[in-house]
């Protein structure tokens, strides 16, 4: 299953753009998406504590994803 991820802040730098498409093959969970991102983009592991938002709600790693889901990554930003 292919899933699109939308990045904000420094996560854009890590995935080299605003969006990235991941191919999920195992359990189709947020946890699998997290592992895929870390293996494709090693710097992503530095954002290990980052929560994923799916369809405007923050979810845990066991959350099941479907192809139409909007998955968003929002790292903290500190500027003022």
């Amino acid at each position, binding site marked *: 299953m292919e899933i699109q991820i939308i990045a904000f802040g420094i996560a854009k730098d890590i995935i080299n753009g605003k969006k990235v498409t991941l191919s999920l093959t195992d359990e189709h969970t947020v946890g699998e998406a997290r592992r895929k991102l870390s293996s494709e983009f090693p710097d992503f592991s530095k954002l290990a504590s980052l929560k994923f938002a799916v369809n*405007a709600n923050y979810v845990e790693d066991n959350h099941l994803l479907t192809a139409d889901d909007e998955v968003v990554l929002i790292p*903290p930003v500190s500027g003022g």
Partner: protein
Amino acid sequence: MLSKDELIRYNRQIILPDFGTESQEKLKAASVLVIGAGGLGAPNLLYLAAAGVGRIGIIDFDEVSMSNLHRQVLFTEGNVGKNKAELAKERLSELNPEVAFEVFTEPITSANAIELIGNYDLVVDGSDNLPTRYLVNDACYFLKKPLVYGAIFRFEGQVSVFNLPADNGERTPNYRDLFPSPPPPDMVPSCSEGGVLGVLPGIIGSMQANEAIKIITGVGESLAGKLFLYDALDVSTRTLNVQANADNPLSGDNPSLTELIDYEAFCSGVMERVHHEITVKELREQMQSGSVHVLDVREDYEYDIANIGGQLIPLNQVIDRKEEIPNDRQVVVMCKAGGRSQKAIDMLKKEGFDNLINLKGGILAWQKEIDSSLATY
């Protein structure tokens, strides 16, 4: 009671449906503490003062610099070098002499935060660093004060409201529900490192002021329990729902934080990093007493603006050119403010370098504390 002058001054909002003199009186009776009089602070302070908030506290220890002026619209070129909080009071008193302004020119710390925040009804966070954001969040939680949060990066902004009394007697989610623990420092660039569009804090700070006014007056619905995201590049907005996190160390099921902590150490994550830093004063002492190898990982054009004579290898070349970096003696790595140099150290460590120390605060700190004749940018 509102005076005749006040009824005239605030007429255009008093005549709004659902607002009226009652809301105006609530604003007059309210006190707001604005943390940081910078990019976000400017629109917050301007609009809260103009709207007639009765008492406004302004905290900022920093001075205006030329590179602030593209976004910190409270200040003029003639203000460069002067304290921001003092200047803000001067400017805002001209805008609205009805408001009582209180100025604090010391940094907010774990030692003074409770006393400072305890003296106000509501807090607006316009700070520019993660340790202060966690500090302000935690202090507001302990004191049960609503916190209007705003943060910016490049073309993006975030707005939320934390810690509002909820229907069930609890408080709405706070910053730690959104971001339970800070990522490594090099993952959270400041405006001086990551850059920021000048108009962005104007948009985000104005939204914060709007939230503050709604909370004080009870008009409309606030962003409590929600995180608003704005991307100025494609004008996209998103509003996410924020739930209370059971693991939140303040407000979760098993709270482990009962008082303020050392937020600098908390946000530097790996405590050993603290020992791999050197201050500009320590570096100057070392330079005076012998030769020190300094590696500057900024870009060529930055080096041309100001440098302290270090070896120049831009961050994206340090791995390719690692043979040029000594590995048999201490090397001090520097950049503009300390973020990129830490990144270079992390990258080079994986290549076997164990002789690298980060220059805390980078060339900006050097310019400020050692050699003010250097250009800043």
